[in-house]
């Protein structure tokens, strides 16, 4: 039973997007979920929504992806290739 409710608490916490939703915590304490387990969930969630991502790191990664997108767009072979069978059929017809 505790497993079920802890799982529900986790789901609602993720959906709430708040570090410490008091009403939710009170609700699940009243439902009998041990406070120690609720605390562990709150701490895990908070720890994994941090640290702040450095903007410069994200921008640098975006820039590198942008280069790949640009390269892919300028490659002539980025268009879908014909299958081997189609190419063989064309070659045979060209010969005739």
């Amino acid at each position, binding site marked *: 039973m505790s497993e079920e409710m*802890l*799982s529900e608490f*986790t789901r609602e916490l993720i959906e709430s997007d708040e570090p410490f939703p*008091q009403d939710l915590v009170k609700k699940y304490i009243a439902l009998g979920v041990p406070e120690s387990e609720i605390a*562990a969930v709150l701490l*895990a969630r908070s*720890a994994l929504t941090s640290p702040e991502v450095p903007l410069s790191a994200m921008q640098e*990664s975006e820039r590198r992806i942008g280069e790949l*997108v640009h390269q892919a767009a300028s490659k002539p072979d980025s268009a879908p290739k014909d299958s081997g069978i189609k190419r063989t059929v064309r070659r045979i017809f060209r010969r005739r």
Partner: protein
Amino acid sequence: MPNEGESDRQLVGRFVAGDTAIFTVLHKRYYAKIYRLAYLQTNNADDAEDIASETFLRAFQRLKQVTFTGGDSIYPWLHRIAVNLSIDLCRDKSAHQIVSLDEETAAGMTHLVERIEDTKPSPFELVQRHEVQDLVRSAIAGLIEDQRDVIAYRFLGELSLKETAEQMRRSEQAIKSLLHRAMISLRQEILKRVSASERLRLLGRGGQKNVGGDALRIHKRIDRK
């Protein structure tokens, strides 16, 4: 035009059809999660940045091969790439250190993991303190693999119970049990680390600053390159 409301599966479909620019939407959607996963693995901002960047470069090159095993999210696939890169980077390292807490925070944490009500500082304040978040990340990193994975899938990747079960090839009920066990273990790991922090703080007291400092340096085990 990229539509940010589209599912990952739809975006991948467009990418495969030749719209490679769509990848920027996936990058925006998952960069922070992958950075934080890498930070959890390495406890180092520079390494996390390198791993996150490399994860997306590899993902771009291999996106056409992605297979969705349950759900529409590519998070599990990115997660695996990032974890493999982290393992390669950290093979010979012991990344997590003992986190130093002040007396008030240590007492608050010991109280919080027993009883949320009447905790001082308030639970709201405690869970947002950087040193507490560092300590909890270190505790998560100290868990056994399946417990660590279930926490990462649920809290970082925000996968549903069903998606987590599919990724971990278990039933939903088994995932609920695993999550429950993971939280009990996490609490124990947190308490262990709070005690370690207390011991270090006490060592540093009473004119034994150097002893404390040495102990801190020894425990930090900075094996970085």
